[in-house]
Every structure is written in structure tokens, then in C-alpha cells.
């Protein structure tokens, strides 16, 4: 017996609603203006350029702290997204009732290292993260950010995260 596949719009709405709830709950993500593009389960963090993100007004260049924050946000959302995926696809998360308060708890950053490869130009920035290890208690995530050229990243990062407890 085969089940009829879900209509594509239902799937998209559910995934977009879960992603939106994940991102909307964090004031600092809103403050930096970061949003996420989704293609299937692949996420790309997008940070449009804004004057308040500048760290060196002479070049000008994006502040190193902003770059670090952008990478960390991209890493933690990717990790949370990968943790929620199975539950979401299995129907265990009701997107209609998802609010920042009812979402499962997010992983906590243990440490985060940023490599500054080039100065961040006054342009939009993009980042993609990859969960390289996802254990019961700890996870490792790599992340890379670029601007005009995907092959020329301006920063890369690696972080370790403490998984949320079973109490949720």
C-alpha cells in the first residue's frame, strides 16, 4: 500500500513556517537583518549590507564582530534546523502552533573560532553551514561566508555546541 504524497504547497508551507519560527524568535538576528533562503533542506543565511554593520569606515569594511555573529547565527540555525527536520517531516511539529516560546530549545555555543580571510566589503553577505558531527550531547559545525564570489569566502568559522537537554 502506498500513501499519496503530500501536495508540494503543504510541504513548503510547513517547512517555511518552522524556519520562520526558528529565526523570528531571536531579536539579535532581526537586529542584524539576517534572513534565510531555503531550497529543500539547504539553508543560506543572507545579511544585506547596512551602514550600522561597518567596523572600518575608511575602507569601508564590515565589523569583524558582525562577521563573527553572522557566522555563528548561520551555524546555530543550521544545527537547530537539522535537529528539527525529522520531527517536522514526521508531523511531530505543528507549524500553526509554533511560536518562539513553544519551539524546542536551541543548542548553546561552547566555543566559536573565526578566520578572517578578506575584509568584508560593503555588500550583501551569504553564509552556509555544515554540521560535521551531531552527537547526543555535542555537535561540531563548519560555516563559510562569501559576498560577490562563492569561491572567494571572506570568512570561515568552526563552532562547538552543547545540545539541548531531553526536557526540551
Amino acid at each position, binding site marked *: 500500500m502506498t500513501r499519496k504524497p503530500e501536495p508540494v504547497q503543504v510541504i513548503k508551507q510547513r517547512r517555511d513556517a518552522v524556519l520562520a519560527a526558528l529565526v523570528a524568535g531571536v531579536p539579535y538576528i532581526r537586529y542584524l537583518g539576517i534572513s534565510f533562503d531555503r531550497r529543500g533542506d539547504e539553508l543560506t543565511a543572507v545579511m544585506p549590507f547596512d551602514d550600522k554593520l561597518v567596523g572600518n569606515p575608511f575602507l569601508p569594511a564590515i565589523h*569583524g564582530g558582525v562577521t563573527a555573529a553572522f557566522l555563528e547565527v548561520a551555524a546555530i540555525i543550521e544545527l537547530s534546523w537539522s535537529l528539527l527536520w525529522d520531527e517536522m517531516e514526521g508531523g511531530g511539529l505543528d507549524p500553526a502552533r509554533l511560536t518562539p516560546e513553544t519551539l524546542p530549545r536551541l543548542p548553546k555555543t561552547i566555543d566559536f*573560532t573565526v578566520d578572517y580571510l578578506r575584509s568584508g566589503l560593503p555588500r550583501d553577505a551569504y553564509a552556509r553551514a555544515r554540521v560535521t558531527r551531531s552527537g547526543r550531547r555535542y555537535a561540531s559545525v563548519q560555516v563559510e561566508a562569501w559576498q560577490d564570489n562563492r569561491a572567494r569566502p571572506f570568512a570561515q568559522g568552526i563552532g562547538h555546541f552543547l545540545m539541548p537537554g531531553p526536557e526540551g
Partner: protein
Amino acid sequence: MTGTGHGGGMAQQFLQMIPHARALGIRLDDLGEGHAVLSMPYDSRFVGDPRTGVIHGGAVSALMDTSGGTAVLSLPGATGTATIDLRIDYMRPATPGQRITARAECYHVTRSVVFVRATATDEDARRPVATATGAFTVERGAGGPADRMPR
């Protein structure tokens, strides 16, 4: 030049001119040769966990990075700096509502690279919120110590 040490004027100026440091409300509390103390107020816009009101680690990173750069610029003859890498260890969540203070020191200085350590605390200064280590580039103006070093 201010009374806060060699290069103090440069570092003060540096901080005033950074749009993102202004956006975070970062203030220079103390400056000496190779060390800097910077702080930022609690602000609900910078919260990372709405359930607890704890400030996002990214905002703490921005404060740490700025304190490291400021410490480098407080070195005699330093005219410019950029972060090469920065590692942050998050010890505990900062207490909501409290000011966060970062103390940065240059613990080793070479002709073109400065190694920096920083510690962030909230109002309980005995238990760090986060620590950081980083390498920063340093540019030096004409006549600075860099020009007398062998190349």
C-alpha cells in the same frame, strides 16, 4: 593624546568612528599601553534567547573583537589593525539586564602580528562570561618602532 596612555587619542578616535561600535553602545572605560577595557549596556535588541533574555553570543563577539582591536591600537606607533582570527569560549550566559565589560591585553607583540587575550564579565567580575584569544595585524606609522626593526 589623552592622559590614558600612549596612543590613547588614536584609540578613542578609533572607537568613536566605528558605526557598529556606536550601534552597540560600546564605551571605552580604560586604556593603557597594550590593554583596553570596553563595555556595552544590556539592550533587548541584542537578545539571543527570548525565553531567558540572555544577550546573543554574537554581540559578545563584537565587543570582544572591538576590545582586541582597541588594545592593539593603544600600542606605541600603531596606526591600523585587522583581526586575523578570533576564538571565543562561552563560559556561562551573561545575566540579563547587566552591563558586559571586556578587558583585552596584548600578550605578545611582533613587527606585524599582535596576540591578544580578552575576558568578558557582567557585574559579577569573578566569574567570566566569555574569554577570547586572537591574532591581529598591526600597521605602524612612519617613525614607529616597526621602522627600526630588521626586515
